[in-house]
């Protein structure tokens, strides 16, 4: 007699044991590790959404914050935002509870292997919705976007990560994790578009103004712990009125990062390290850890997501054998690959 019967009468989650493929759980690979970090960030976002501030309406509440993202956007973008903000204003408790729970479930769903695909797909849809209705397209169209304040919208990076970390393999072996699902060319192009857009936003008039950068850093001090305020004051005073120079330096760094993934592996790694350092500096100095320590954050902002994205482009330790493009896998094999990885 085997132990199938033993296991079979214990729990529901083991109920399908007899029908499952007999495979050892594979070790945690780079893509799964990055998926788990993404899941953790979604979970943290969900928890943040339960904060008391999120359940308040009016101009100074959550709905007012949403309505404010319509400012300066074209009417076709702004009107739905205003409509949405009004709707939320009238049903703030119920809707925000739903929003928070959705984000919580997205995090848990990505972490739970059988639901990773559903959760990632849902996260893309949710991110796109939040990008429009919650972030006003990240200020891309109204001139408010800056790499320092989370442009092009932190939440759109969630969607990008979900696509790049999708559990399927289009290119085997892939030169880096982000290339596995969409192929190296597409992955590199997405990377370049993101970082070049950040470089562009760094040089917009509002951001290259003399006090543009330092003012943005100083504006994040309110409500933060003393040690973080001191850090931000130091950063703001270091830049002072040299906003133009700071913006140019930042833009150059961002262009180098964008180009880095097209260069040989050693230079790519240097560019990715630079990307992580820039993301960390932005997160600490300009975004104050997303404002979480001040008690009014809606998410972690873009810093950690940019760093996570950079890790998805990190070349493997051993260079893969001659990359060969293979046709997109069909649904069944993809599911199988996902099962195995997951």
């Amino acid at each position, binding site marked *: 007699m085997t*132990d199938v019967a033993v*296991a079979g009468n214990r729990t529901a*989650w083991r109920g399908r044991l007899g029908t499952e493929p*007999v*495979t050892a*759980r594979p070790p945690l690979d780079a893509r799964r590790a990055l998926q788990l970090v993404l899941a953790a960030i979604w979970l943290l976002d969900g928890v*943040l959404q*339960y904060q*008391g501030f999120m359940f308040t309406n009016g101009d100074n509440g959550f709905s007012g914050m949403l309505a404010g993202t319509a400012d300066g956007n074209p009417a076709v973008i702004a009107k739905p935002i205003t409509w949405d903000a009004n709707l939320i204003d009238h049903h703030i408790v119920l809707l925000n509870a739903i929003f928070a729970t959705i984000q919580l479930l997205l995090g848990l769903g990505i972490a*739970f292997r059988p639901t990773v695909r559903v959760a990632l797909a849902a996260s893309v849809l949710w991110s796109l919705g939040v990008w429009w209705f919650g972030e006003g397209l990240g200020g891309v169209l109204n001139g408010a976007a800056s790499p320092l304040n989370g442009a092009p919208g932190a939440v759109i990076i969630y969607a990008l990560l979900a696509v790049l970390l999708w559990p399927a393999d289009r290119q085997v072996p892939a030169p880096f994790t982000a290339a596995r699902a969409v192929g190296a060319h597409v992955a590199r192009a997405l990377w370049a578009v993101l970082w070049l857009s950040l470089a562009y936003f760094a040089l917009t008039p509002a951001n290259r103004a003399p006090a543009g950068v330092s003012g943005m850093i100083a504006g994040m001090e309110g409500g933060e712990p003393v040690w973080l305020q001191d850090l931000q004051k130091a950063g703001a005073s270091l830049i002072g009125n040299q906003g133009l120079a700071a913006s140019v330096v930042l833009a150059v760094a961002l262009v180098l990062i964008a180009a880095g993934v097209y260069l040989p592996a050693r230079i790519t790694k240097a560019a990715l390290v630079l990307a992580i350092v820039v993301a960390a500096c932005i997160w600490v100095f300009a975004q104050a850890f997303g404002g979480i320590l001040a008690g009014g954050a809606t998410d972690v902002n873009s810093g950690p997501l940019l760093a996570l994205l950079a890790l998805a482009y990190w070349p493997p330790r051993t260079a893969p054998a001659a990359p060969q493009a293979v046709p997109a896998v069909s649904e069944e094999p993809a599911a199988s690959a996902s099962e195995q990885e997951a």
Partner: protein
Amino acid sequence: MTPDWILDIFAAVMLVVAAVSAARLVAARPWQRGAVVTDTDVSHLLMGIAMAGMLASSLTTLPNGAWVAVFAVLAVWFGYRVVRDYQASGARALAVGHCAPHLVHSAAMVYMFAAQAAPAAGGGGMGGMGAMSGMSTLHVPTLAFLFALILIGYTIWDLDQLSGLRQGLALSVVGVASPALAGTTAGVLGPEAGTTALAAGSRAANGVDQGSVDQGSRFTLIPVLDSPGIVVGCRIAMGVTMALMLILMI
């Protein structure tokens, strides 16, 4: 202000965790010789009660100081266990051992009860979550954030390991698996789940029949309580709720 009904839902979840842990303790028949009473069940029971009291002031049971003492003892105990695990398995014990998450949980509980900046609005000075819905805050909010991050990390890891385990158990079930795999199970889920998994794994390898395996379980009365998913599920619920409380109290 976070609505009370939301906090009440989380309080109810914590009471369920406490009830499940209590049932596991009873099912282990601690009054019998050789009974195995696991520290994780004791810890889940106490944390469930304490957190429910923090979330809903009507469920408050003990003063803050008493809970600080209780969880300080638990933290010391799990700290000792982690050190022992570390000596046996190295840094891997922090990632896959079951004691490290419980150490973090216990330490976070000590912090939450000890660092409240304002007494509870409706909790009679006992930390009821008038405290939270009344936006009581914690001293050293950076520490709250760090605790929340670690708790979320362990929660995500637990979920991944739990779901990944399904395939691993399938392996042991058909006898292909080795005791080593079951040993991994024990590491992830704790000794209470691991004992059974280890028994199942080794017996599968040795071709032992069902009856002898069932004799190895300490949950013959309520077999569902023996599910590894129950233990980890409790820990996941606790991790999410604790992270929520920490963030709300920043």
